[in-house]
């Protein structure tokens, strides 16, 4: 009996690990489609940002109540994983509570901590579901945000429900196990750990069950718990919950520049220097292959923008702070990130279907996912960048798309074209004569 379970378990574990590895590889490959950009300078500063923002959840704490609730899920997730290690080893070796004899009195203490955390996680998940469906926090509502369609909502609901079920399975598993131990049932009785802090109160649920039924439930809860966690691991790679992993590298590779500084375009610097006669063209130099100016598709964006897209939690803090979105414009920085990820997922599927190479699908990020009306509404106020709890920069993508629209397609709104020509000809964005620029000084002594 145990040997069959062991074999089944090893098969399940191997299959899920293989599937996860495949997904991880695909995600890596699509991120590598982006343009190179160096984000490894200042390692100490980066490490400290990662520790504060991802590990310490600094930006979540701007709203204390939500911050603490999220923190409970996060700590629960980190710590309960120690238990998962034991469960996996038990599954492989057919043991029961393998760590108990080695850890002695520490063991029940650990399990007690896990149980308290499990209750915390369970409670917070219920509260989070209520926030979505009962108190209806604005930034999650599809009526106000068209990017919050069926899948994003289902995604959030699925994860919260799964977490609730996992916690229930964990606690009732401990409770049924305690009863079995009490009854001295062989295999269970080898671990003499006593009752646990929370599950002791659940024991009355099981005391009337006969031993066979108890064993069946214990096995069910154990399998449900571990299979649930394995499924969660795979599911996460398709979900906004990928942030539980990517938040760490994503904050490490944060933009260290002041938020107001826009990336320079060295290709253009060279051309402008030639045009102004500041530099001479080097006749020996092979004409540089000039790439596309700005971005039309994900291939033109920095790899960091692509990692940003996979890291997005779809929390909508950016959108809730966006002046354009607040006043009813189509722009939503969260949608910019979700569209970028959708594009990457589509490209990933395309690559899988064509032996690992992307076959043109006549679609581009700009136009087929993100509309010009959206990017034109941005005031570059950086509120989205400021708010993002995992240091995503939606503005960077918006600006790159604008560059493409203006420099490659020469399609700016007419009023911008007028402004451009004023800057070029009159040295000011308005049609004033440059010779009048200093006229204000005449009024100083009036």
């Amino acid at each position, binding site marked *: 009996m145990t040997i069959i379970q062991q074999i089944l378990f090893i098969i399940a574990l191997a299959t899920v690990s293989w599937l996860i590895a495949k997904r991880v590889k695909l995600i890596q490959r699509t991120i590598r489609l982006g343009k190179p950009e160096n984000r490894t300078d200042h390692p100490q500063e980066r490490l400290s940002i990662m520790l504060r923002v991802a590990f310490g959840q600094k930006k979540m704490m701007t709203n204390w109540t939500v911050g603490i609730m999220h923190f409970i899920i996060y700590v629960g997730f980190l710590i309960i994983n120690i238990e998962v290690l034991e469960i996996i080893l038990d599954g492989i070796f057919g043991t029961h509570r393998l760590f108990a004899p080695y850890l002695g009195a520490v063991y029940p203490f650990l399990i007690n901590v896990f149980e308290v955390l499990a209750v915390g996680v369970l409670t917070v998940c219920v509260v989070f579901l209520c926030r979505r469906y009962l108190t209806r926090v604005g930034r999650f509502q599809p009526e106000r945000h068209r990017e919050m369609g069926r899948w994003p909502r289902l995604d959030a609901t699925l994860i919260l429900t799964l977490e609730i079920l996992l916690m229930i399975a964990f606690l009732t598993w401990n409770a049924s196990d305690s009863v079995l131990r009490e009854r001295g049932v062989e295999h269970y009785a080898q671990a003499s750990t006593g009752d646990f802090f929370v599950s002791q109160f659940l024991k009355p649920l099981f005391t009337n069950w006969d031993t066979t039924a108890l064993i069946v439930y214990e096995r069910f809860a154990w399998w449900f718990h571990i299979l649930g966690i394995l499924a969660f691991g795979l599911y996460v790679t398709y979900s906004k919950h990928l942030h539980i992993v990517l938040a760490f590298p994503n904050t490490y590779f944060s933009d260290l520049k002041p938020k107001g500084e*826009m990336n*320079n375009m060295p290709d253009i610097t060279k051309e402008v220097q030639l045009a102004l006669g500041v530099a001479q063209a080097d006749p020996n130099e092979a004409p540089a292959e000039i790439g596309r100016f700005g971005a039309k598709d994900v291939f033109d964006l920095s790899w960091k923008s692509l990692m940003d897209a996979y890291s997005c939690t779809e929390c909508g803090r950016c959108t809730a702070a966006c002046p354009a979105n607040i006043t*009813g414009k189509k722009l939503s920085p969260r949608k910019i990130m979700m569209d970028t990820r959708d594009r990457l997922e589509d490209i990933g599927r395309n690559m899988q279907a064509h032996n690992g190479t992307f076959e043109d699908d006549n679609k581009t990020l700009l136009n087929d996912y993100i509309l010009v009306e959206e990017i*034109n509404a941005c005031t570059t106020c*950086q*509120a989205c960048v400021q708010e993002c709890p995992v240091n995503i920069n939606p503005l960077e993508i918006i600006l790159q798309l604008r560059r493409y*629209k203006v420099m490659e397609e020469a399609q*700016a709104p007419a009023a911008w074209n007028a402004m451009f020509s004023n800057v070029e000809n009159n040295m000011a964005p308005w049609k004033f004569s440059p010779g009048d*620029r*200093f006229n204000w000084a005449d009024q100083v002594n009036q």
Partner: protein
Amino acid sequence: MDATPEKTYKVPTMAELAANGEEPDVLFWVGCAGSFDDRYKKVTIAFVKILNHVGIKFAVLGTEEACTGDPARRAGNEFLFQMQAMGNIQVLNGYNVKKIVTACPHCFNTLKNEYPELGGNYEVIHHSQFLQGLINEGKVTLKGGGTFKGRKITFHDSCYLGRANKIYEAPREVLQTLDAELVEMKRCKTKGLCCGAGGAQYFKEPEPGRKDINVERTEEALATGADTIAVACPFCMTMMSDGIKNKEREDSVKVYDLAELLAQAQSL
């Protein structure tokens, strides 16, 4: 401290100073709005009066100044931005400029953060920091009980000063010296709501939506009950003034730049 009415204020240019073989302590970068926008010219003048008053050796570029290129760059026209930037850098480096002060957060951000990569390295400060410095050094002191004593002032954070460059306290410290009651809007500092002008929005109609951004922001400013909205940016100035007009409150609520408030308080 007393401003004498017959006092004449001077605005030396870099060219004049250079002709005498002199260099100023600081270059005042006026910016396009400061040079051409009728409302913001008043701010330029107020700031020049303060500079004169404290006796700092400054100069302006006059007609040699050109748009920094900020709106072109944010709109996506990198060519135009770099043409402007390099032209300006040639002029600035030609005069061996080391320190720049400007009353425009957009010019400030561009000169400070974006010119270095193109060869323009200067110490750049915004006029709010400059004014704060003057106050801290005791060069500007206000006798208590000025015109603002006891009145409510609210400060609107400019995105390119605040989030872009983390300058939140300098403008507030300047306002503190006015002895007025500084009331904050619901969204302020890192959470400050944009006036709607940045990213070259100022130069085109907004995209279709429910509301104009400046109206949303003005409503928030009015909700504080302040009768003065202090700004530190020419574009915020226009957007907030338009918002006040939209709300038909231009008789009871005024929009002023920090430099104007300080100059007024000293009756310069």
